[in-house]
């Protein structure tokens, strides 16, 4: 997984009743854009360190066409 500061990170809710979580990458701790990432979560406004699993995906906002949120 590769991310840059400012990218959006999404964890899909794969259990009933558990919504998807969306956050913004504030810090990339790994080499070459790799994890872990310091992510500030939209729903809480607080940041935690995340070692993403395969249910996580990164939306590179720099590559996102204007007017859309996800690529």
């Amino acid at each position, binding site marked *: 997984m590769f991310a840059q500061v400012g990218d959006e990170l999404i*964890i899909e809710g794969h259990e009933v009743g558990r919504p998807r979580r969306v956050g913004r990458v504030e810090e990339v701790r*790994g080499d070459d854009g790799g994890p872990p990432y310091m992510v500030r*979560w939209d729903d809480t406004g607080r940041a935690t360190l*995340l070692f993403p*699993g395969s249910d*996580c995906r990164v939306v590179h906002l720099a590559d996102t066409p204007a007017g859309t949120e996800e690529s």
Partner: protein
Amino acid sequence: MKISELALREPVVIGCDATVADTAALMASSGVGSVIVLDGQTPVGIVTDRDIVTRGVARSYPPDGRIDGLMSMGLIAVDADHDLAGLVHAFRDHAIRRIPIIDHDRVIGVVSLDDIVVHVTDELSTVSRVLAGQIMFPHATDEARTPSPA
């Protein structure tokens, strides 16, 4: 109070290609109920004894199946130099019961919600003892400190 000042338990880790049976055996020999799953040196998930029961045994997942098929992905972690309040927020925000503690991108321990309860209870107990002492042996100095009218 910094998280690093808590009595952290050594993390118990296992490779993501280990089997469910290996993981259960490791839990038994280490006396823990959760194991951090690594891909190389990178944490990729956490698996608990409950996961093995509810996602494994209950669904006839084979004991020789890979443990990463049962683990919870997307590991939420907290830096060791954060304060305790930040850790409590993380427990609440992410509805989890165990959080790996990171120092320089290395897992140095795991804190459970139970650990926090024990810590807070200890702190309260200390305060309670001080309070009880002050109630039973009130400071005579209160009066002594008050200047007597000349």
